[in-house]
């Protein structure tokens, strides 16, 4: 084999290496998107597990607020039924649960001795953390989608993506309803 042959061989090897690297990067991004999607479910499940504890702890203090608590319990059981169906199917029930929890937290503000309770304070922290986790899990999912879509669209990885059928991933979009500030009836 002459010098020319060696040069051609080296170019071919470099080219193959680049294709493999780009392909593996796309696979990694695709798996990250899938994993991030499941992570949202994990965090939703965590919230479901937390609520019975919370209701149990506060119900003695909030005997006049049975209705609020009842709403939380009902919203939770509806949300539990959507477990395992993916975040999109669960969205409506989860939004209702968020709303019910928000109302309960607001009502709890009216009970100073409740907030002074160590157990309640801890549960409130757990609840706040769970809400954050859900939000951050969705955010990471969307970040992962952006990374994948960037790779699928930009040169040169878009050529590999086209060849091996890597597609755009869909962003998780929250309906405007949840983003709006909840209205509180003060009477």
């Amino acid at each position, binding site marked *: 084999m002459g010098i020319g042959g060696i040069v051609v061989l080296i170019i071919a090897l470099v080219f193959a290496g680049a294709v493999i690297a780009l392909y593996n990067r796309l696979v990694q991004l695709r798996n990250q998107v899938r*994993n991030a999607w499941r*992570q949202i479910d994990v965090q939703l499940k965590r919230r479901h597990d937390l609520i019975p504890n919370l209701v149990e702890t506060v119900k003695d203090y909030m005997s006049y607020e049975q209705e609020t608590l009842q709403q939380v319990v009902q919203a939770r059981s509806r949300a539990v039924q959507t477990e395992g169906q993916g975040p999109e199917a669960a969205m409506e029930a989860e939004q209702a649960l968020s709303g019910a929890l928000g109302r309960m937290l607001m009502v709890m503000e009216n009970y100073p001795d409740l907030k002074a309770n160590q157990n309640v304070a801890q549960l409130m922290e*757990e609840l706040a*953390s769970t809400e*954050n986790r859900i939000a*951050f899990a969705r955010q*990471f999912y969307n*970040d992962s989608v952006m990374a994948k879509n960037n790779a699928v669209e930009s040169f040169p990885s878009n050529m590999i993506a086209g060849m091996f059928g890597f597609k755009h991933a869909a962003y998780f979009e929250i309906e405007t309803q949840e983003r709006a500030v909840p209205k509180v009836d003060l009477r």
Partner: protein
Amino acid sequence: MAEVTCPECGAANSGHGRTCRMCGTPLTAAAAARPRMQRKVLRRTDFLAAARANQRATNVLVVTLLAIGAVLGYLIGWNLQLHLDDAAALPAGIWFVSGWGVVGAVGLVGFGGVWSTVTFSFGDRIVLGIVGARAVTREEAPQLHNVVEEMAIAAGLTKPAIYVVETPALNAFATGLRRNRAAVAVTRGLLDTLNRDELQGVIGHEMGHIVNLDMRYATAVGVMVGLVALVADLALRSLYYSGGGRRRGGRGGGAGGAVALIILVVFAVLAPIFAKLVQMAVSRQREFLADATSVRLTRNPQGLIAALQKLGESAQPFKGANRATQHMFIVNPFRNFTDRSSRLLATHPPIERRIQRLMNLGA
């Protein structure tokens, strides 16, 4: 002059400056009339663009550092060839591409790379012991655990180990050469002083160091700087002890050899200083980058801004820190944060500059 309140961020200014010391908003008509200079500092940006800019700056600095090492290696090889190689085999004069020089350049940079890689494989948690950090359980610090876990979710990483340093000083640091085997540590003073949002900003900053692999940057850059200093020192010493003695065969005694020698000496004296300056500049860029990453994770610049203000105001000294670990903290544990005199050698940018940049992230 009277005190001026900034119309943009509400910070109190002494009235001497033309722009607000916190956010850079022009305070006088003269400053407002110079829009081009302002735009350079105050350009609104988002955290992704800020992160890219910081990463680019790091890349330039790292390449500069490698170039310093390569030039030093080349000059040493070149001088050795002039002195030791068979004169007859060399081209005339001293300005030729030195084969020994190329070997020296590649050798020095390559050795730095190998040494860094070896260092990567151990010793990533030594600092925890040095500053007296203690692992805390979820029961002891539930909120800290929650906040760290939230940030790990936002970053898509495994939750790092969590440590607390029992000191009233306000500080935090992260360590770990691998993203999924890292640790964050905060001081007791920080836990007691910051609210949840501020703590989240600080932990986001530390998670930023982990995501951006800043321990590796710090280690690799530190190895290269140390190597440059060591090799430059060796070169100078061997020249000193050989005392300009004549070498066999080579042309070391010629005028050309003397010129080459002077170039080497000058560079060997300057290289460690420049390398150190580059190292500190890298450290400052990584701090800016971690701030931007914190905002990417929390989507709430206000938390980190408020935390940095509290950290800047705190006068509590941190006794556990030392010079070798100072670059790892969220704010430098030694320095007077507003000191501008020694900016080039600082491991961290001044806190006002960091707050200013955070405010530009569309806060």
